[in-house]
């Protein structure tokens, strides 16, 4: 095997802060190198240097032993370096075929024809490309009309079609279901066999063991280690990433004695999203809804809160039937909601911690429409202390400067300040560092002990098993099973969530 890529002593600073310090990276053709590290470790900066989006301060990049200098992404593309980004970039109002070949649509022939796009050929090529993944997507369909998963597949095909020599995949499976992940792995293996070298970034360690030959770990901009996959196990990997040993979380759930049902959902339906949902959530209980992404759980919880509207069904909070059509209705019914993407839907990033914290409940803080400054500060400080929210610069710091875990706690605190009785959390630890996760789990446990009813949506099976009193599984928009904490196991959950019930 030959060394297809070598990065030597890559250094990069932003505004005087070193974010990459002498990073080495070697990649051989036909291998998968997993790149691991917590958020902010420097993974994405390194990748952006490789594809020419950022320029390194010092260091060298060699492709096939030749030094190269990438000024922009199109330069690296010419050398066969292709990227699959975490967030999708596509043109919603253009066809699948055009999205696949944006920037280099096939031209016709002849003196005039060679300047004009040959749409027939574009569509044929697209069909061929889509054949790579064996998917049934119409090349002429608009991206807008595709599901999220279909759009992701188009993105992946866009990257691997053509002369990919080095493929960088940044969390490619985040939105895929297990059979789709398997499919993706098959493709990765195909590409490997063809000699394509792959850099694979993922938070899911089990995937790394499944697919990678070597792992490289970054921490705080430093290269910690590069190892063969046989030399490591998941504990040692986490330790390398976090820099200290993470103690195994000992699950010690307070046994909730069935109290009053805090939330009662019956006969809830939404066409195309979920159907006939019935469950109860009791005071002081943490219930998780586990399912593969796209099974309707997000839409379900959004409908309970009022971020979208169910077609029919009833929602009772502490025995009172509530009509929920808008988020305000959810809040007034005593329901809080922590969304998945807190930077987009959770926080006003430029506003202070204080103002974000009180955003959902001004009632007690106002006289005649004006804020009582002291009271507002006291209220916020109470939650900052209670949840251990850490920030440099105090309560007036813009919330964008906080770490992912602390930002998540701000959203959490907002709903506690709003005095909700039921709290819904969507993927509570996405984008939260491994080290900060157990902290959030502890907080949830504490809140439940104080009587809050908590509904968690998560696709992380370890998380679900670690924090829930009860677990509901969802498949294709329907609840398929219910497990108590004691009954639940990985096998049972996965089967139930895949619609395979014993």
């Amino acid at each position, binding site marked *: 095997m030959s060394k297809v890529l070598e990065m030597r002593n890559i250094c990069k600073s932003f505004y005087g802060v070193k974010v990459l310090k002498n990073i080495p990276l070697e990649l051989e053709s036909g291998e998968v190198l997993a790149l691991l590290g917590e958020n902010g470790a420097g993974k994405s900066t390194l990748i952006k240097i490789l594809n020419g989006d950022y320029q390194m301060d010092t260091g060298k990049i060699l492709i096939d032993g030749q030094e190269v200098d990438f000024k922009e992404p199109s330069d690296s593309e010419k050398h066969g370096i292709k990227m699959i980004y975490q967030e999708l970039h596509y043109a919603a109002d253009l066809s699948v075929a055009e999205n696949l070949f944006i920037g280099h649509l096939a031209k016709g022939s002849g003196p005039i024809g060679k300047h004009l796009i040959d749409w027939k050929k574009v569509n044929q090529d697209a069909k061929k490309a889509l054949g790579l993944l064996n998917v049934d997507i119409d090349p002429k369909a608009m991206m807008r009309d595709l599901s999220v998963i279909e759009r992701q597949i188009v993105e992946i095909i866009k990257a691997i079609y053509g002369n990919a020599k080095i493929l960088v995949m940044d969390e490619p499976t985040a939105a895929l279901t297990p059979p789709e992940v398997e499919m993706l792995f098959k493709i990765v293996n195909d590409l490997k066999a063809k000699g394509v070298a792959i850099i694979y970034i993922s938070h899911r360690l089990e995937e790394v063991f499944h697919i990678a030959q070597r792992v490289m770990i970054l921490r705080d901009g430093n290269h910690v280690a590069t190892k063969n996959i046989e030399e490591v196990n998941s504990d040692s990997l986490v330790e390398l990433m976090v820099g200290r040993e993470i103690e195994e979380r000992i699950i010690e759930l307070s046994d909730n004695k069935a109290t009053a049902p805090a939330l009662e959902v019956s006969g809830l339906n939404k066409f195309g999203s979920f159907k006939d949902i019935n469950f109860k959530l009791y005071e002081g209980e943490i219930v998780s809804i586990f399912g593969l992404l796209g099974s309707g759980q997000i839409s379900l919880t959004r409908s309970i809160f*009022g*971020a979208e509207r169910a077609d029919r069904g009833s929602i009772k909070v502490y025995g009172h039937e509530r009509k929920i059509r*808008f*988020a*305000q209705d*959810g*809040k007034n019914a005593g329901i809080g*909601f922590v*969304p998945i993407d807190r930077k*987009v*839907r*959770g*926080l*006003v*990033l*430029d*506003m202070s911690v204080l*103002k974000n914290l009180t*955003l*959902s409940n*001004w009632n007690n803080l*106002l006289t005649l*429409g*004006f*804020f009582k*400054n002291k009271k507002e500060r006291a209220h916020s400080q109470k939650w900052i202390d209670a949840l251990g929210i850490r920030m440099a610069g105090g309560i007036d710091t813009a919330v964008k400067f906080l770490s992912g875990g602390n930002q998540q706690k701000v959203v959490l605190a*907002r709903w506690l300040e*709003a005095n909700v009785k039921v709290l819904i959390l969507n993927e509570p630890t996405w984008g939260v560092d491994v080290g900060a996760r157990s902290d959030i789990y502890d907080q949830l446990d504490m809140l439940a002990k104080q009587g809050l009813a908590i509904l968690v949506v998560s696709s992380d099976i370890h998380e679900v098993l670690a924090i829930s009193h009860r677990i509901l599984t969802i498949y294709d928009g329907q609840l398929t099973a219910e497990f108590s904490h004691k009954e639940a196991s990985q096998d049972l959950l996965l089967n139930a969530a895949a619609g395979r019930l014993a």
Partner: protein
Amino acid sequence: MIKFLKKTGLQDVIALIVILVGIIVIMSLSSNLFLSPRNITNLLIDSTTVGIIAVFSTMLMIGGGLDLSVASTAALCGVIIGVFQASLGIFPAVLIALAAGAIVGLVNGILVTYVGINPLITTLGMFSIARGLAFVFSNGLTIPVFDLSGEHQAAYDRFTILSEGSFLGLPYPVIAMLLLFALGVTVLHLSSYGRAMYAIGGNELASKMAALPVKRYRVTAYVLSGISAAIAAIFLTSRLYAADPRAAPGVELTVITAVILGGTSLAGGKGNLVGTFLGVMILSALLNGLRLQSTSTDLQNIIQGLVLLAAVGFEQVRTGNVNLDIRKMFSK
């Protein structure tokens, strides 16, 4: 106060004050009339139309909105005063004008929030409609607004005093503008309405998910913008003794220039009224000074446009958000 200024961006405020002082110095050097009490009074009174509207446009723009229809609305409201004063009396006419301003704002607000049309296009449409209605109601003529019959002298005197009266040497329109700015600062920084504007402009989606009644706040902002145009129209009509469907030409551009000059972001979420006030004063001093040198109004248009570009461009250069790789743009 210092703390408050720090919060609103002390540097920006100082920069604006420096520009204002610079313009005042240059203008007073080139014309000794500039600093005369009479001219200062004129300058301040002239600034009130833009100033009054700018208070509410600032709030609207911080909330992520935009209103290009304010000048047309002001003309329409003026014409409404002119049309209804004869039959109903001057003060009912003023109330109807205020209501009309509110209705125009309400329609804008509903179209933007509930129907979902882009604010630029909505208010550009209303810009045309309101101006057209002003011409329709007035038949394209200037309507005199004073006591033709001689029977309601007292009422009209009270209306005229709105623009002619003064307190401690400050004309009433100027006092009204200053009060509105003071009220605006208080509302923007200390009230739930102001907080909501910053939140909605900063991240509309997150505000929605935090259960803020986003649409209601936004409609309110448009209604207030419409009312501010009506208030400006009342003072303008009082001052001119007449309602002109052509009134306040290009004022929407001056208002936006002043607001952006003052540091409010077009994208929403950022901005303050101290900056807007200084922006209004800078533009007023500039235009007044040019007028004293009998520069044609055409040159004023040019300069106003350049000031707008300079203000935004300077901000871009200062924050380093520029793209100097010009050669690449022309390369193959």
